[in-house]
């Protein structure tokens, strides 16, 4: 097992690469599922689609 983990002396490089991929896959999967759940709960609570907020600055009117 330690022979496998050492990867012929390249263990640090191999596992840094694979570890980052595993971490991203795990966290991204959990994050999108949590976001979908939040959006579903909020979307069923809201009365109507949120209207886009009014523009903060009105364009100058042509005289």
């Amino acid at each position, binding site marked *: 097992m330690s022979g*496998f983990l050492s*990867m*012929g*002396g*390249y263990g640090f*490089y*191999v596992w*840094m*690469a*694979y570890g*980052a*991929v595993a971490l*991203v*896959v795990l966290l*991204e*999967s959990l994050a*999108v*599922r949590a*976001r*979908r*759940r*939040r*959006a*579903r*709960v*909020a*979307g*069923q609570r*809201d*009365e*109507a*689609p*949120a209207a*886009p*907020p009014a523009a903060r600055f009105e364009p100058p009117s042509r005289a």
Partner: protein
Amino acid sequence: MNWFKYASPANFYPLAGRIATVAAVAAALLAVVGLYLGFAVAPTDATQGEAYRIIFVHVPTAWMAMFTYLVMAGWSAFALGLNTRVSAMMAQALAPTGALMAFLALWSGAFWGRPAWGTYWAWDARMTSTLILLFLYLGVIALRHAIVDARRADRACALLALVGAVNVPIIYFSVRWWNTLHQGASVSLAAAPKMAATMLAGMLVMSLAAWCYCIAVSLVRAQAIVLEREAGAAWVRTLPPLAGRAA
């Protein structure tokens, strides 16, 4: 079959969920097979030793970073040309996954470059153009957050995504156009593979796994985006309530 049926958020939502489930299961199975091939079957490389095994995540993430960008640009073109909202939501859903794939390609490349070339980073043509790809993804995401009106953000992001697509062929051909550090293509449709068959098989299976993963995770994100932008709509309110802590 009328494809425009799925341009309606209410019809797109359940379809996306079904495809995401199938893709997620396929990604998991393919990853198990791919990792088995990559670590247990493929032989040690004659010159690079075990360090070359980074190829089984490096090439799939690099391919998906480029391919996801093209898909995002394609949905952006639909969004601009047909003015279909779900197309814009698909483009929006792909950007974070593409950015993560670009990051992982650069990261795994750095940890391969150190043992293989003696450096984590160089301003090599392919590495630099892949870094620009990551910045393009981040630019699309940032632009989205900078524009409050979702429909205006759709159009601005679509335009940026389409203009940035010119970078993808530059990445792809960079190893031919400029003779810098990065090696040439490992796999070509025009030539026999330059590696052992089991190595190639592991790389291709892992690429399929990455492809399925990207489909699954971006479709779930697309579902979330649809719900966020359709909040309060009748079809959202009639979805069965979630069990558990949701309240």
